[in-house]
Every structure is written in structure tokens, then in C-alpha cells.
């Protein structure tokens, strides 16, 4: 490793160890505050020395995140954070790398990079703040905005079909896919911890409200009056139940899900490690108004990570060929001498 990683008996860390003196400059009431707070509560509990955390972001409101975390951080350029995260993690696999992005940054300008980060299974955690709007540029529709969204650039309503972030991640065969909510700190902390523990790439979509340009972005899902009926909390090994008294369940009718009574014998049991992506896809596809929105860990399977395999090839080559000498480097396989 290139860095002088130290592993002393790590002193216990607390939330305040992760707070920077910088003024946080999000709009009052922005969902990002709650996410920041939850991450600052999560990191001290992971058993990782503070100096080993690296937070990398692109451009956008969410991407200001590194400035507010007392860790190593890199605020990069629009859409390209996954590439920098790849370089950091490949260079030093011991680091705990967190990538903060938004719906525009991660799924529009940086869609390619996110796709490749996910399919390579780099062991980083991706937090995608989805507020379905371009906030920092003052309110243009985003790739996750529903069809018909009226903004300054779409006065007649947007005609683009939106990206479903979970389906995108599944299409890239991400090994860990989850969804959490900016109004539920407890759930965020639990989800962030599970994402960190997963070896390989972790993709977490966070429903986030933009109080200025898209206020109420997720109210249809998580407002007080809707949350019981419109959300399905996923728990491994537990049945898929929802409703005020968990009176409703989800079962399969052929290849299609349908809502049934919670007491039905064939209510599905949540299996995030289900071998078939069909199950994850069924969950990812469940949206309003026909189905409740699944929240929690949708998928968690195992596959070797990219940086460990690269590192392994270096070690294998060194084992086979030695550490590489100047003589071999400069002389190569064929030389001649002139007297």
C-alpha cells in the first residue's frame, strides 16, 4: 500500500468527530441535512479509523457533501465521481470509500460511469440522493422526474420517460441495492451500515426532498397520511407486508406480483440474496399507484470485488516473477553489446 495506514487501538469516535467547522450551505429545510446527520452518526460506529474514510462527490447540491464531513474528501466534476472513486479504491483497497451523487449527476451526465462502477463491483458505497430535480441550477427537470413534470425547461411538461434508479442498478448487476428515506434517520443509519458491511459495490437510493424547487417530491410515498399504505418495508426472511396494521401482503400470480391478504399462505418472504434477479426486478418495478414502494435492502449477493482482483493479480505476478528489478526493466529480453 502506498499510504502509511495506521491501525492503533482506535479511540472511540463520535458524531462530532465527523463534523467540519464549515457552514453548511444547503437551503433551510433541505433533505440533505438529515442525510448528513445520519452519515455522521453512522461512520463512528463502523470500527474504521477516521483517516481511512474518503468521501467523493460529483457536482450538484448533494455533491457539496464532502465539505461537511471531517474525513478525506474530493469534490470532483459533474458525473465523474465514480471514476475518481475507482482510482482511489484501486490505489488503496484499505480505504472506506463513499460516493455521494444525485439523480442528475449519477444518472444523467455520469450514467456511464455509474454503470461501470456497479458492474465492476468496486467495493464502495454509492449514495444517490434522488430529489427528481436539478436544484443547483435552479429547477430544471431531471432524469428521474416523472413524465409531464413542468419546469422552466419543460413548460409544456417533460416527455422523457424517467429512469428507475433501482432498475438501473439491477441492470448493471449491482451486488447490493437498497432504498432509504431522508425523513427516516433510523432507517438511513441501518441502511448505511448494511451497505458498508457488504463486500462489493453498494447502491443506495435516498428519497430526498428539495424544499425550493420540488417540494413534496416524495410526499405521495412517505407523507404521514400516505406512508402506511404506500410503503413496503423490506426485512430479510420476513413476509412482504404493508398497511396500517400490516394487513396486506404481496404474492405472485404467475410472474406478476399482486396484492393479497396478509394471511394468504403464499405471501412472499423477502430474500435479498435470492439467486434470481427476477425477484429483485419485481420489487424494483413496484411503484405507485398500483403497488406500495419497497424500502430497505432489495438485493444483496456476493461477487469478487474489482480492486481485490486487480490487487490479487499484482500479488500473483510478484509471487511468480519477483518484485521487478532495474536490470530486468531496462534490459528487457533481448540486448546486444558493442565493445
Amino acid at each position: 500500500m502506498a499510504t502509511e495506514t495506521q491501525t492503533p487501538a482506535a479511540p472511540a469516535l463520535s458524531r462530532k468527530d465527523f463534523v467540519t467547522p464549515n457552514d453548511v450551505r444547503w437551503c433551510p429545510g433541505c433533505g440533505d441535512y438529515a442525510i448528513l446527520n445520519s452519515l455522521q452518526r453512522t461512520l463512528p460506529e463502523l470500527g474504521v479509523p477516521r483517516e481511512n474514510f474518503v468521501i467523493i462527490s460529483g457536482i450538484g447540491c448533494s455533491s457539496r457533501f464532502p465539505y461537511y464531513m471531517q474525513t478525506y474528501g474530493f469534490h470532483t466534476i459533474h458525473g465523474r465521481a465514480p471514476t475518481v472513486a475507482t482510482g482511489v479504491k484501486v490505489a488503496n483497497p484499505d480505504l472506506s470509500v463513499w460516493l455521494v451523487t444525485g439523480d442528475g449527476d449519477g444518472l444523467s451526465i455520469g450514467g456511464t460511469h455509474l454503470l461501470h462502477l456497479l458492474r465492476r463491483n468496486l467495493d464502495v458505497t454509492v449514495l444517490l440522493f434522488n430529489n427528481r430535480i436539478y436544484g443547483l441550477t435552479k429547477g430544471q427537470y431531471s432524469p428521474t422526474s416523472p413524465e409531464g413534470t413542468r419546469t422552466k425547461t419543460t413548460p409544456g411538461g417533460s416527455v422523457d420517460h424517467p429512469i428507475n434508479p433501482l432498475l438501473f442498478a439491477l441492470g448493471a448487476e449491482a451486488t447490493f441495492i437498497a432504498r432509504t428515506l431522508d425523513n427516516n434517520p433510523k432507517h438511513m443509519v441501518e441502511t448505511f451500515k448494511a451497505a458498508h458491511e457488504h463486500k462489493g459495490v453498494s447502491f443506495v437510493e435516498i428519497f430526498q426532498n428539495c424544499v425550493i424547487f420540488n417540494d413534496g417530491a416524495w410526499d405521495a410515498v412517505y407523507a404521514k397520511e400516505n406512508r402506511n399504505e404506500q410503503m413496503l418495508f423490506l426485512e430479510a426472511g420476513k413476509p412482504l407486508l404493508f398497511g396500517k396494521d400490516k394487513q396486506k401482503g404481496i404474492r405472485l400470480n404467475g410472474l406478476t406480483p399482486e396484492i393479497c391478504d396478509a394471511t394468504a399462505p403464499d405471501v412472499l418472504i423477502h430474500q435479498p440474496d435470492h439467486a434470481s434477479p427476477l425477484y429483485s426486478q419485481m420489487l424494483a418495478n413496484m411503484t405507485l399507484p398500483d403497488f406500495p414502494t419497497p424500502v430497505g435492502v432489495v438485493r444483496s449477493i456476493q461477487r469478487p470485488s474489482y480492486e481485490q482482483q486487480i490487487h490479487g493479480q499484482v500479488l500473483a505476478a510478484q509471487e511468480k516473477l519477483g518484485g521487478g528489478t532495474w536490470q530486468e526493466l531496462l534490459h528487457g529480453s533481448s540486448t546486444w553489446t558493442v565493445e
Partner: protein
Amino acid sequence: MTPATRGFREMKSVVVRFAGDSGDGMQIVGERFTDTSVTVPNAIATFPDFPAEIRAPVGTIAGVSAFQVHFGSQTVLTPGDEPDSLVAMNPAALAVHLGDLAEGGLLIANSAAFTEENLKMAGYGSNPLEDPELQKKYDLLSLDITGLAVEALKDSSLSHRDKLRTKNFFALGFTYWVYGRPLEPTIQFINDKWAKKLPDVADANIRVLKAGYFLGETMETTRNRYMVARAEVEPGTYRKISGNDAIALGLIAGAKKAGRELLFSGYPITPASSILEALAGFKHYGVKTVQAEDEIAAIGVALGASFAGQIGVTGTSGPGMCLKSEFIGLATSTELPLVIVNVQRGGPSTGLPTKTEQSDLLQALYGRHGESPLPVVAANSPSDCFRAAFEAVRIALEYSTPVILLSDGYLANGSEPWKIPDESSLPEIHKPFADPSQPYVTFARDPETLARTQAIPGQPGLEHRIGGLEKNEKGGISYEPENHAEMTRLRAAKVAAVAKSIPPLNVTGERTGKLLVVGWGGTHGAITSAVASLRAEGYEVSSTNIRYLNPLPPDLGALLAGFDKVLVPELNSGQLALILRARYLVDAVSMNKIMGRPFRVNELRERILQLLND
């Protein structure tokens, strides 16, 4: 098989060009002829010239592939202007290359390929080999190379198709006879390549190679044979090296001298891909390679590695440079070490992917948004790519800055003998890192180099944030007008400070006089050859090659001022000339060539003579 000197005409240097269809194996025989000649030893330089299409339709002009070898008993700095011998394996190869053949030159043609259909595809109305004019103008030797190769294999178990594929070795064997070269190195090569897995193929190629050689010995007609004596070469251990391989080694050497690991991240692009390919074979040196999803990702990965404390390098060619420019701006703003290799090719856009040009100089210097100066270094020969790459790594680390290394297609694919340097002749590289016992200041600078001291993730107590937003010295975001002005000034001053570490310019000839020829990059060999030959004839002319294009060498201004005239030959429309005129108020004369090909020594000589006589 020691060649007898009897019957040979002694030559100081010879240029041989092998040309054929891209499936005819011309690159292989060119490489073999080169490897054989370096063992003589001869001074040598090569120039492969192949089409952008992997397999254009057989027999067409578009599918012609060629390899030129220049070997001599004295210094050889270029692959040569015009071939003394041309091996043409089909009519299309003849049509493309005959115009270059020196009058009276040896023309070996594979008559079997001059069929009606092939002649038509090459645009010939009649068979040029039967043209009395051609026979008068050149020393034509029309041989049924295909038939003779197949005949030599009449007992072989190979399929007819595979027999046909050996014809390039027949042409090679005959050419060896003409120039009295030994067969052993090629036989060794064939055995190494095929003897184990495909013994029949090895056997067939050796038989055909020998058949070609023996044809020369048994031919009834007396042919001219040519002898190039051993070159007086500086004693030492040598290897043959191409520009892109030399870049790979220079990058590793730089990383080793700095005690950093190298991470190279690239996206396949002609003519830069072979750097990534070469480095992928050096994993045991701790080299990590990433084939990224695109050009932007490639530089992002490299920058991430540099942020994590390694040395990140990316490589590409012109179109890729355009895609990387936003990231180069970020590297400039965050002041992280990074090397960006641009193996230039003909542009704009896809342009001429396999041809050479020097037209990205202004892009390297200025092709970014905002005030974003960075050091630019250029290699001047295939083997010099090693030292240029090493220098790029040194400057990137010692000054904590992105550096652009300019090479070109001509250097990348060309190869020459390289006197292997001693490891101890390479300087140590000192990278400024933060002191963990002191509070970390993100933009604290080394007083000498003005380099930012870097702290690396994993170092306790030095946690900090960087990014593309303008910062103050402590690393805080700042929109203050005075701070922006000061940081802009500091970034420029740091790049300017690199000049203190630049050695004095190398000058061929006197440092004052009538005419100075100023070049940069891969034109070095042709310019030096032209100037050296004119000086030997008594002309008052000097030349220099600029390696450091930003900042420019401190002694350049005085050198320019010492001459009546300055000529700047470039494979572009006058980009360095523009800089020299602006910077030094010198009335530099531009000489330009934008044809995808390097300068010929003769065209440089003519232009220099014109200026001297004006």
C-alpha cells in the same frame, strides 16, 4: 553463412521498404530485418506505415501496409527519405510506394500477384512490370515469390493456404541475400515463436526463408549486392525500443525513483493503446492498469490514484485529449500530480488515426477553460520517449501538477537502438508530503518549487477536502476576488518555477550565426540530419530541439537572439512558431507539413539552403 565481401558494393547506409497487403506480414518481415541488422551492428531507425483498417479488402490501395528500415555504418537519425530498395508484394503496394523509390533503386516485385484483377484494383491498365520505362528507371527484379515459396514446400504437410502465407519469409530471405545479412537471428525467432506449438509452421517458414536466400546464390544472372559495414557505435549494452514501449519503461522508472506505485488508466485509441498493453505486463513492478469505460473515466481513475498517493498516468491521442480536458482543469485546480500522455495523430476529429502530426501543441498549452497553465514535455525520438516520460513523472510529483507528455505516431511505432542507461544516472524524485506532526494546510507550498504539500488518505490527523471550487490557502472554499487572483498567480508561478530545473538547450553547431533551425518533438532526427550534413558541407547553420514547451527553457531567448534567421519546421501550421514570435518577438520563419508523414531530410536541406541564400 558469413557473407563474402566479394561481389558487394559498399554503402554507407541503405533504406529498404517492404510493402504489401495488410495480411501479407510486412510488419513482421520489417521487424525481422531490423532485429537482424542491429546485431551486425548497424545504426538503425524504422518506420512502420500501416492502414487504419485492420483488414481492408485484399489487393486494394487502402489495404497496403509497409515497413521501412534505414540501416547504416554511421549515425542514423531517421527512417530515411526515399528507399533504395522496395519490395512490392502486389500491384497496390507498387502503386502506393513506387513514387518514393530512388531512381536506379532495386525493385523486387512478386510477379505472381500481378494478376488482371489485382492490377485493376490498383488502378493499372496494364502490367507495369512489363513497362520498358519502369525497367529502364529501376533495377527491376520480377520474381514469382508466391510460386517459389509454394514450390519450396512441396513436401510439406501444410495446407495450400498456409503455404501461401509463408511468401513474406521468401521475400525476406532474398533481401537478406542482397544485403549479406545473417539468417540465424530470424531462424531463432521462428523457432521461438512456432517450434513448440506448430512445428510444421516453423519448419515451413525456415525452409522458405532459406529458399529465398539460396535463390540469390544460385541465380544465374549476376545481381548487385550491397554491403553496409559495421557501424562505429558507442560501446555499451543496447536494446531495440519503440516509442510507446519507452514511455511505459520511463513511467515505471519515474515511479520507482519516487517510491510511488504507478497506476495507468487508458481507453483503447490508436496510436496510444500499446502503452496500456505494455504496462499490463509489468504488474510485478506494482503497476496497476485499468482499462476504463471511456477517455474521461481513464483520467478520472488516474487522478483518483494520485489523490490516494500513487502516481496516476493516463494516455491517449488527440480526440481523447479533448474529452479529458475538464479533468485536466480539476487536476490543475487541486494541484495533484498527474501525467497525461498524448500520442499525437493527424486531426481534427478522427482524422488520420495511423498517421503522424504535431498539431496538438497549442491544445496542450492552452486547450482548457479558465487560466490553467501546466508543464508540457515532448519526446524527440523513439528511445528518448523513456527520458521524456521520466521527466514528466518527475515534474508532476516534484511540482504537484498535471503534466502533458507529447509524443506522436511516428515515435510511438518507430523503433531504434537504445543504449541502456544505468539506473544510477536517473535522478531521485522528491515529492513534497505533509508532516503529520503539524496541522495540515492544504495549499502550503514548498518555498523552492511552490508545490502544494500533499496529504494522503489513511494519514491520521490530516483529513481535508479538495475540489474544483476555488480555495484559499487553508483549503476553504473562497469566492474572494483577491484570493482568486492570488491563487491564479500562484498556479502560474509554480509552473514557471519548473524552468529552474530545465537543463540548457542542446545545440547542433555554434550558438550564434546565420540560421538557427528550431524544432520540437519527433522532427529532431530529420532536422539534425539535415543540419549536420549541411554543416559537413561548410554551411553556417545550427539547430536545437525544445523538449520543455512549457515553461520554455530559460536560455532559449538568448539563443534565438544570436542568429540572423530562425526557421521552425513543424508538422502543423506553425504552432511553435506562433509561440516563439509572441514570446520572443523574433521573426521566425515557419516551415509546415501536414500530410500525415514526417519531414524528409532532403526537403529540410532545401529549405535551409534557400534561407541561407536569400
